[in-house]
Each structure stands twice: as structure tokens, then as C-alpha cells.
């Protein structure tokens, strides 16, 4: 049973560019959440998608946007990259009303230069 798959594992972008990160949820899960983990920090909630809509959003600017596809996979898009966007981006999948059953992926390490 495949867990959460994220791609790519690493990438380097230039300030001002745009980036798209991808996430395939665990089999059976239909809800996807995205987190940003800066170096030396705990993950911070970006947003959650369910039924192809953004269900909840954390304190992140509009440069961060997302999408969920009918097969429940998701994309995170970041526009006008800043140096401060360098971080590990984690995806977590779950059922819509989990008691605790979230599964995290191994993340995408984004470096902005």
C-alpha cells in the first residue's frame, strides 16, 4: 500500500520564478494538506484541499496557491519566489474527518537562490 508520494524530492529555483510541487495521497485518502517547514522550525500549515476545493488556509500570502484533482492528487504552486520560501514542503493526506490518521510524505526540499 503506497503511502504519500511527493515530487520532486529536491529542486532549486531563482528568486522571482514560479514553482509547482506535487503530491499523491495514500490510497483511500481524499484530503490533502500542505505544510512548510523552514530550517530549524516545525511545520506550518499552508492549506488543506478536499473535494477539489480549498477547505482551510493558514497564514500564507496569495502567492501560495493549490489545486486538487479528481483523483485526489494535489499541487502546490508558489509564485514570485522569495529567498524566504526556501524550506521543506510536506504533504499530508487523510480522510475528511480523521481522528488522527494523517500520513505524511517525505517532502520536497525547495531552495531559492
Amino acid at each position, binding site marked *: 500500500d503506497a503511502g504519500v508520494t511527493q515530487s520532486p524530492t529536491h529542486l532549486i529555483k531563482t528568486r522571482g520564478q514560479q514553482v509547482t510541487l506535487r503530491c499523491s495521497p495514500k490510497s483511500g485518502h481524499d484530503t490533502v494538506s500542505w505544510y512548510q517547514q523552514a530550517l530549524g522550525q*516545525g*511545520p506550518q500549515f499552508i492549506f488543506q484541499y478536499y473535494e477539489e476545493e480549498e477547505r*482551510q488556509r493558514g497564514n500564507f500570502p496569495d502567492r501560495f496557491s493549490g489545486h486538487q484533482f479528481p483523483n485526489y492528487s494535489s499541487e502546490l504552486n508558489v509564485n514570485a519566489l522569495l529567498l524566504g520560501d526556501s524550506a521543506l514542503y510536506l504533504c499530508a493526506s487523510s480522510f475528511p474527518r480523521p481522528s488522527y490518521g494523517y500520513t505524511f510524505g517525505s517532502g520536497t526540499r525547495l531552495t531559492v537562490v
Partner: protein
Amino acid sequence: AQTVTQSQPEMSVQEAETVTLSCTYDTSESDYYLFWYKQPPSRQMILVIRQEAYKQQNATENRFSVNFQKAAKSFSLKISDSQLGDAAMYFCAYRYQTGNQFYFGTGTSLTVIP
């Protein structure tokens, strides 16, 4: 503001010994879950143990146990018989019972000394 504080950036323990990681949190809600997650170098967050806030009994999972003090908003993790594979970053977190997001602390880096 919802906050989780892990006051120990780094901890070390001898193999086979016991170590306790500290965590305090701040919330005005009464219904929530508490978690300890482990993040090894592979970067994947792995659930170690969870606790429902409405339960007074402390959760236990094999060598891992918690000391949950709701009034003090304290949630420490005890690792018994530490093993080399326990070396990792450990994050304390909570999530409201009807909520969608985790609130994480800044983590404690645990080193296990052979």
C-alpha cells in the same frame, strides 16, 4: 495565538536508558488531540503516540509513553530502553478535534549514544 513550546532544542541519551522530552502548549479550546511525531533524516513525519485531551489516562505505545497534564497544558514524551533507531527530530503537536491543521513545536533533536 496557538503555540507549542519545546524548550529542549537538543537532547542526548545513552542506549538502553530513558529520556524525557518536554512540551507545553497554549490553547483556549477544550477538545483536541495531542501528538508526538518523529522526523528521521528521511524527512517523513512518523506518528509516535497520540493522546485525546478528554482522556485522563496517559497513552502508551510500547517503549513510548506520555505524561499529560491538561491543567498545566503539558505533554511530555518518555522513551524507555532507548535504541539507536530512536535518533531523530521529535515534534510535539496538537490539533483541534474538529479542526484541520496541526500546530507544531520547533522540535527536539534526540541523539542516542551507543
